[in-house]
């Protein structure tokens, strides 16, 4: 790669000693990107936008927030009522968490469909799953901070899960709480960690991007880039496309913030935490519901916890479960079918996680949980062996091969180009 010629003498002087400008040029400007990425490839930059938004609004909130059980709820109300545009900052942060998860979940399913986890991108994928775990921990602790009823009882239920660990479980829970129940020490440490973890996420995101730039983006065809004719420079092509995606995202995000800011939240969290009064139904935020359903599907506490974490653990080993050499679901008729079943299964789990654990809901949760694990542990390894994949195109710029792919090549190309 040739070093760019910088015209500005100051830039040139700095770049000679500290090549940040060359670095940015390579990674954000000339960075060769497959020419056929679809809009699903916008979600990565949107996740970055969401992360920055959360950090900026979070730091402003922290300037006004008081992490003490007697003042936390009131300090959030003061932010809402007395801090200039505090309601805006807080609603962006509160809904931003949800939109961050929406974006990241779509991003993950994109990867699942197009086989983006396969060699040579295994570590890239694993770093992504790690980001998801950190996000979950961050969001869980953040939700505790306003110290409403759901904050308190959600924290109580989830921290109590650790008591399922044999022998040392109870001591671990007391250690986590810093006392004998969720109380002031718990709140202050959650605040400290909630402030810390987003910056850990930033660190992992940087590694994620370094790994990405090693081999470049996967693409809807799932085949490797075969030469210059298959790629275009990141700037201005994908910068302009990412900008458009960001505007569409912000439009939808803004409609939630300004018109229905509490739609995704739970009304009980506007009741101050009361350790003496358990809410009728304790439900986590929507983005945890599939995992909550898995937790409750297993009749044994320890088992539930193991399966819940197992649901993420299988994602870590996914690159070694799906051994098919073909990446993209486009050329894997059976895989494609099971992909959609898995997506439906996850939505069903999310629905069940919001229902009381009784009657038919329990049975359905068990079936859906079983299917989730069967998909990863049985169906994918089996498909790698038995599935007859469709012929792959020769290259990205010539996406059509002879056999079986004759349907309207022009239309296909038009689509792949956008």
């Amino acid at each position, binding site marked *: 790669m040739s070093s760019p010629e910088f015209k500005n003498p100051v830039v040139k002087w700095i770049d000679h000693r500290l090549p940040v400008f060359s670095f940015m040029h390579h990674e954000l400007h000339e960075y060769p990107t497959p020419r056929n990425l679809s809009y699903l490839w916008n979600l990565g930059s949107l996740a970055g936008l969401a992360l920055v938004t959360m950090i900026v609004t979070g730091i402003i909130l922290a300037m006004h927030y008081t992490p003490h059980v007697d003042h936390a709820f009131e300090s959030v*109300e003061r932010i809402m009522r007395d801090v200039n545009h505090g309601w805006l900052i807080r609603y962006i942060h509160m809904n931003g968490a949800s939109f961050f998860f929406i974006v990241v979940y779509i991003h993950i399913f994109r990867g699942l469909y197009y086989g983006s986890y396969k060699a040579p991108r295994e570590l890239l994928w694993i770093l992504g799953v790690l980001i998801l775990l950190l996000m979950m921990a961050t969001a869980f602790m953040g939700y505790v901070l306003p110290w409403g009823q759901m904050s308190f009882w959600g924290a109580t239920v989830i921290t109590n899960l650790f008591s399922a660990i044999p022998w040392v479980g109870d001591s671990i829970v007391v250690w986590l709480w810093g006392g004998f129940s969720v109380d002031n020490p718990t709140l202050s440490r959650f605040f400290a960690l909630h402030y810390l973890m987003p910056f850990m996420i930033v660190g992992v995101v940087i590694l994620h991007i370094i790994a990405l730039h090693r081999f470049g983006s996967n693409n809807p065809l799932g085949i490797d880039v075969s030469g210059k004719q298959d790629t275009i420079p990141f700037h201005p092509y994908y910068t302009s496309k990412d*900008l458009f995606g960001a505007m*569409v995202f912000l439009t939808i995000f803004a409609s939630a913030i300004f018109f229905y800011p509490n739609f995704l939240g739970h009304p009980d969290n506007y009741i101050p935490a009361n350790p003496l009064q358990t809410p009728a139904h304790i439900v986590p935020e929507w983005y945890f519901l599939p995992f909550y359903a898995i937790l409750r599907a297993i009749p044994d506490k320890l088992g539930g916890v193991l399966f819940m974490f197992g649901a993420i653990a299988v994602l870590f080993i996914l690159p070694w479960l799906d051994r098919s050499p073909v990446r993209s679901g486009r050329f894997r008729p059976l895989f494609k079918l099971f992909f959609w079943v898995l997506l439906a299964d996850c939505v069903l789990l999310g629905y069940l996680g919001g229902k009381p654990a009784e009657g038919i809901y329990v049975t359905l949760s068990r079936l859906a949980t079983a299917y989730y694990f069967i998909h990863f542990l049985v169906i994918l390894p089996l498909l790698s062996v038995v599935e007859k994949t469709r012929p792959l195109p020769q290259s990205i710029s010539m996406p059509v091969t002879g056999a079986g792919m004759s349907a309207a090549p022009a239309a296909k190309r038009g689509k792949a180009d956008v």
Partner: protein
Amino acid sequence: MFKRVSQIICAGGIAVLASMGGMAPAMAAGAGGDIVEHDWTFDGPFGFFDKASLQRGFQVYREVCASCHGLEYIAFRNFSDLGYSEAEIKAIAAEYDVTDGPNEEGEMFTRAAIPADRVPSPYANENAARAFNGGAYPPDLSLITKARPNGANYLYSLLVGYKDAPQGKEVPDGMYYNTAYSGNLIAMPQPLYGDDIELAGDGDTSIEALAEDLVAFLAWAAEPEMESRKRTGIAVMLFLFVMCFVSYGSMRYIWADIKKK
């Protein structure tokens, strides 16, 4: 190209409209009782508060609910939102006593409230509130419409929901039958009957009208920022719609040479 632009704008528009209009009522069904769905001026992206109604609602709160329920997050100065002048707010505040201090002798003292004070709560603490209400706790009302599912409709239904208990339903002492309350037995005696209040400006004093004004007032108390939030929202949405068009256009322009190959 124009076909694609219109497709994308339509898709975006539908998503936004769905989030603006269609989704909120899906949260209906309150805490298990019968909920009347009512039209409110403050519903939807163009919602607003009717100041006269808020003032009437405040009067009802003050004359009926304030003896049992606090409004702790509202300061008197906030009443400028209801259309009161500074002098009127000073006068309203002066009708309340608050505890202040310690003074130079180290003693707490009572003084008339000023606009910067919060509305004083009727009880010193939760235990005192429970002691006065047979063990039940009348919650603070400053967040009540946000703290219940379908809050405004629920509150309205609760206020007009006192009925004679059906045959065979046991109503214990100190409990009252209410069709909106979950489980139908509430420890709050019927607060509104209608026609027992005299409203400024000859307002309608039927129980429904009183309840409506009161709900509007409490919806304001829970979300005093709502009007400016929605108004800002409209401007932001218009700006973002334009930005969607502009960024889409520039993307197409930049990509034009790629498409030709």
